């Protein structure tokens, strides 16, 4: 996370060798990215760009999602299976024969994601995946990311969506002016006024709420609704008991 122009996308592009370092070293599974081609690296590291139109070009959604698989030399049978599985998982199966360019912005975004997920890269880089997605689709996306993560895949997400991050509570790396300025668990980072200021973010609503309730002995690092509800629920019940006893 970080302000516009902080260098997030530039860093992301270093991870599959689209950009190579002019200073320092980037390694993927121990291999220096300057010694490998983008084709070799992208087998392991899949990047889904911010703008799906930079990635889509095929005539049908099915072809789009199968393109990389064919290029990587998978057997035709495997290609068909993988494409079907991925389209199913992202709720795109009914668009198999549709042109990606006839779909809405949010749907094109999911096709772009499917086109990368299809070859099951070990590391997945998502640049602003929640743009144009409504709340239900964000929930799907969140579950999907958590599922990939639990299968042992590393997921790197570039995002401005503080509420989405608050609900996932991942490790957060904050960037500003081309440098990493902080890292830590989302609930710590997103409730820290100094860091929020530095990275041009705003606090999630729950963090704002709890900093305004700081006089009542709540922890400071509350960022998601369910924890907020639990903490407030306890306190409010206590108050209610006290009021009942005193009357």
């Amino acid at each position, binding site marked *: 996370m*970080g*302000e*516009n*122009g*902080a260098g997030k996308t530039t860093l992301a592009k270093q991870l599959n060798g689209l950009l190579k370092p002019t200073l320092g070293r980037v390694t993927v599974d121990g291999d220096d990215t300057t010694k490998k081609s983008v084709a070799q690296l992208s087998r392991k590291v899949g990047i889904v760009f*911010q*703008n799906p*139109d930079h990635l889509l070009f095929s005539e049908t959604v099915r072809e789009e999602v199968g393109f990389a698989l064919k290029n990587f030399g998978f057997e035709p049978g495997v290609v068909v299976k993988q494409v079907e599985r991925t389209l199913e998982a992202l709720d795109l199966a009914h668009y198999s024969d549709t042109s990606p360019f006839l779909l*809405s*912005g*949010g*749907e094109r975004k999911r096709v772009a994601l499917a086109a990368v997920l299809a070859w099951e890269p070990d590391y997945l880089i998502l640049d*602003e995946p929640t*743009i*144009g*997605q*409504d*709340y*239900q*689709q*964000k*929930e799907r996306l969140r579950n999907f990311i958590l599922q990939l993560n639990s299968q042992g895949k590393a997921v790197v997400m570039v995002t*401005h969506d*503080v*509420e989405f991050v*608050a609900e996932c509570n991942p490790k957060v790396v904050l960037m500003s002016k081309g440098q990493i300025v902080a890292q830590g668990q989302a609930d710590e980072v997103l409730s820290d006024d100094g860091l929020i200021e530095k*990275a*041009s*973010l*705003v606090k*999630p*609503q*729950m963090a*704002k*709420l709890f900093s*305004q*309730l700081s*006089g*009542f002995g709540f922890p400071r690092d509350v960022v998601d*609704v369910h924890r*907020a*509800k639990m903490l*407030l*629920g306890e*306190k*409010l*019940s206590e*108050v*209610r008991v*006290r*009021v009942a006893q005193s009357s």
Partner: protein
Amino acid sequence: MAGTQGEVIAAHGLGFQYAGSTSKALEDVNIVIRQGEFLLLTGPSGCGKTTLCRCLNGLIPNFHPGEMSGDLFIDRVSVAAETTSELSRKVGYVFQNPENQLFALTVEKDVAFGPENLGLTREEIRDRVDWAMDAAGTVALRDLAPYELSGGQQQRVALAGVLAMKPSVIVLDEPTSFLDPRTAEEVMAAVDTLRRENRITVIVVEHRLDLVGRYAERIVVMDHGRIVADGKVEDVLDSEFDRLSGLGIGLPKVSVLWSLLKRDGLVSERLPTHVESAAKMLSERLRN
């Protein structure tokens, strides 16, 4: 049937079906929007928000073929009687993807393109460009090429280009999606200031109610091509909370929290839409 004074947009029984589609994208839409209103248009993906906005500046039916029914008036003139170029002077549109509307070699030229095509004087064009670039916070980008800019910067340039046309209505389709949260708040605040100072009508299409909720006076919720809720933000969130969450609309987190507490009988007040009002009500209860 022309609308009364102050009505800038009036739709009566508006419907639209895209050519080749089997279902209606808009069905029996009835709405009146007044000069100077700040309206938040929301609803699940595919509910017809963007289709409705496209009708407002004549992109529908002139550029997206299909069948339109009902009546739509902009500034008390039926859109059927106007060309897209006339309509685009009245209704400015900032698209979801700013790359779709930037094309000149410098930001300044891009912002000047609209006014130049209105046949204005050199001085007037210069004044408008300076004003619009300043209002959208893009002065520092003047000599850069749009394609060199970050997504967030492009979004501001697109806004400046629309402002330079001095439209009476601005439609912003997810205007802050590429912006960092601080910049997003700045842009929304700038749009609100412009609206107050120039009595521009602002229509924002947005999934994130927490961002726009504080500026918008009115919320219009669509589902399956129809308007399913229309009213003050606080009223609609309070009375239609369950329905809106059922539609998958991203409600402000404080409102979600409040509804959970209310369900357990721990609070009784109306759903807050801002952190400040929730904090105030909770502080009062906790102080007891």
